[in-house]
């Protein structure tokens, strides 16, 4: 094994081009476990800790440009207002020790269906900026996950920045696990209200081969809220609309039975989380001036 320690982004890209099999490592949450348990013996480890720009973020007009290695702890501390869904999701990641080192880039690199950040990114709307010596690509988050632990990256590409849309309305995140800390999601659900476009977006975690949006549920809800004039009136969403939304979210799942839960349980729980998080966000929306920050 070789340990590559690029001092800059350019050096990192050059190293990845020269050694496409090199495994990038930043927080080590996933990579070190695989090495410790001898599940993986990469030829090259590509340490990204010295690449400073990966640890930086910038709040722009439309979106937050989040460096791939910005630790979850920073997201929780500094981006709760701009990215409430992602901040809530970050808070559910493992433990303080892990959150101090792990970041969204690693979550996307592993592309596990259970990755905590993914439902929040799907709901908020995001693009993943990836780069190689050949150039830069912006991959929409909806096209990023291509299979179980597979993503749209080419072998010579590295994840540089995640461009996440700034919240224009309430966002919530819910995760089912056996305890509060140190839990891989049994399943998870993210929701974001986008009052500017009068749309709702969702993300489902750990209940399909990849993180997915509940598109039919979104379409149904968008139409129902529009027809009922809910965005203008701020009325309470009727139970029948909430139930239909929950049922469609549940139907968007394609889960498996595994050690963490059964497929049937996951479908059920996603429906419950969809209904609850819709209720929470809608209450926040109705509250108007109330904070957009996540409440969990």
């Amino acid at each position, binding site marked *: *094994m*070789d*340990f590559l*320690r690029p001092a800059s982004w350019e050096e990192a890209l050059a190293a990845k081009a020269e050694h496409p099999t090199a495994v990038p*490592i930043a*927080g*080590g*949450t996933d*990579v*070190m*476990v695989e*090495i*410790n*348990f001898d599940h993986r*013996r*990469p030829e090259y*480890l590509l*340490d990204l*800790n010295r690449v400073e720009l990966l640890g930086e973020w910038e709040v722009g007009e439309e979106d937050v440009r989040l460096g791939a290695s910005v630790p979850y702890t920073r997201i929780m501390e500094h981006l709760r207002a701009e990215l409430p869904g992602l901040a809530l999701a970050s808070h559910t990641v*493992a*433990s*303080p*020790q*892990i959150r*101090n*080192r792990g970041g969204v880039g690693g979550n996307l690199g592993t592309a596990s269906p259970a990755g905590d950040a993914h439902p929040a990114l799907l709901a908020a709307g995001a693009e993943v900026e990836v780069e190689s010596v050949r150039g830069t690509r912006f991959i929409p988050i909806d096209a990023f996950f291509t299979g179980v632990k597979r993503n749209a990256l080419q072998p010579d590409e590295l994840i540089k920045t995640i461009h996440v849309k700034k919240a224009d309305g309430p966002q919530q995140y819910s995760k089912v696990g056996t305890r*509060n*800390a*140190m839990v891989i999601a049994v399943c998870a659900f993210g929701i974001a209200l986008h009052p500017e476009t009068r749309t709702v977006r969702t993300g489902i975690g750990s209940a399909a081969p990849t993180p997915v949006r509940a598109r039919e549920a979104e379409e149904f809800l968008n139409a129902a809220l529009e027809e009922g004039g809910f965005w203008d009136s701020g009325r309470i969403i009727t139970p029948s609309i909430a139930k239909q939304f929950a049922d469609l979210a549940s139907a968007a799942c394609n889960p498996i039975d595994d050690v963490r839960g059964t497929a049937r349980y996951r479908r059920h729980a996603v429906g419950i989380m969809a209904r609850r998080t819709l209720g929470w966000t809608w209450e926040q929306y109705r509250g108007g001036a109330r904070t957009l920050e996540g409440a969990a």
Partner: protein
Amino acid sequence: MRVNFTVNGRPQQADDVWEGESLLYVLRERLGLPGSKNACEQGECGSCTVRLDGVPVCSCLVAAGQVEGREVVTVEGLAEYARQRAEGGSCASGACGTTLDEAKGWSARGAGPQTGEGAPSPRAALSPVQQAFIDAGAVQCGFCTPGLLVAADEMLERNPSPTDEDIREALSGNLCRCTGYEKILDAVRLAAARQERQGEAV
């Protein structure tokens, strides 16, 4: 490969390090510092918690090469680290920190059960949080203790007056299978209270 980094305030060098090796392995097997415990090796238990550039991390999830040039504090250096912090930080004499030999020979020599009266001696062998763990009876088998001490000490540095919720959150990455956590929470509350009293006395 060779890794140069600072451990408990002193520069150290580890040789013949395998590229896939963890910081935990380097500390225990290359430097002879077994205070950081090796349990789950997957970041689940927090027994291997150390501070890396001041930040609590699971040393089993840090690749050895990633610590080149960086600063690590282990439980063996915690007492001296806390003492320096209490004295206002920087090491003017250059003789601060904990040598490898001191660290290897470290044992818990407390001041005996404290009632909370009086300040600890200037060259305390125990950090306030360590003393509090002894006094509160927060140690049973002791395997999780080093990780808990490092995590608790860092929280008290950041947040001198933690709520119970803050304490639970800060220690949520450290598993203990003996105590049921109650005595551990007591110990951290005790350390916080003593810290507060001492702050008022200054």
